[in-house]
């Protein structure tokens, strides 16, 4: 029973952590090398990882996706520490509009223009901080969605993730509050209702214990339990 419970706990933790890692904003230090538009024909595998056509447009099975090609600084430990080496990264640039995740982004076109404005060649590098959510996966052809682009002086900049800090503080407070609410509910509503039932249960258990004291082993316990159902003589 404990294994089942722990397994479920671990699975729930992985699911929630994965969801947060996908949805919460992250910051990459990168330089934009080019922008492009490709046509994409989504399948049921990767449709979930794309948002929707630009605000006020109609949904079709096929549509153009704006992409931002970049060269970004590698990081480790969830992006907290920057490394010297670089890697390519491709971002998509889509409106999230009023749907999930709640970034309420309507300015994809403007963002694409900003990306073009900050494009640079290796000799004269223009570094930017790209705020994004989502994952890059080659096998599913999915891209993180760029939310904002901010030019910076050099690649050594550290970005403080203020939003995530406040988000986790708030989530902690909310969790404590929900726990307090649940405890109050249990104390004031469930426990009083169970009060009488609990007394009856204690009697049954006491009786079973008396019988059980005489029994040893699984078979003995089973017959002892059967005896509790027999009529008293």
């Amino acid at each position, binding site marked *: 029973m404990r294994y089942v419970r722990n397994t479920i706990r671990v699975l729930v933790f992985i699911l929630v952590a994965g969801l947060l890692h996908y949805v919460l904003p992250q910051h990459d230090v990168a330089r934009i090398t080019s922008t492009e538009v490709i046509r994409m024909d989504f399948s049921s595998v990767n449709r979930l990882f794309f948002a929707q056509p630009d605000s006020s447009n109609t949904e079709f099975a096929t549509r153009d996706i704006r992409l931002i090609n970049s060269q970004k600084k590698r990081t480790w430990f969830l992006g907290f520490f920057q490394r010297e080496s670089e890697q390519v990264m491709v971002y998509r640039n889509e409106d999230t509009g*009023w749907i999930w995740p709640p970034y309420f982004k*309507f300015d994809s076109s403007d963002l694409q223009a900003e990306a073009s404005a900050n494009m640079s060649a290796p000799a004269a590098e223009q570094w930017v901080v790209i705020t994004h959510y989502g994952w890059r996966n080659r096998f599913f052809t999915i891209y993180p969605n760029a939310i904002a682009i901010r030019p910076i002086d050099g690649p050594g900049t550290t970005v403080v993730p203020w939003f995530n800090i406040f988000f986790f503080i708030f989530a902690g407070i909310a969790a404590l509050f929900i726990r307090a609410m649940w405890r*109050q509910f249990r104390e004031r509503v469930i426990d009083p209702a169970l009060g009488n039932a609990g007394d009856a249960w204690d009697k049954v258990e006491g009786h079973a214990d008396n019988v059980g004291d005489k029994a040893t082993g699984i078979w003995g316990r089973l017959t002892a339990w059967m005896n509790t159902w027999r009529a008293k003589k």
Partner: protein
Amino acid sequence: MALIRLMIFGFLAMTIIYVAISVYSRSVRREKLENRWAEKHPDLDDEDARDTYINEGMERYNNGIRPKLILSVYVIPTILVVLVLVFTNWN
């Protein structure tokens, strides 16, 4: 359409939170009143007087500012949505 859907589901979610917090806050206040009564009159076994005391306390609570403050459950998320909207799309 997406905006209407967001408004409907957002309103439903906020209503659930509002009701839950209202019930919780009321329950905490009632418990406090019960404890205060028990402290003041440890030996008195008068159900009617106790009920009157608690009902008066709950009335004071209902007329106080706290139930109105819980309405901010509707206000704060709306402000947050507007803020995120502005910060995401502002150049």
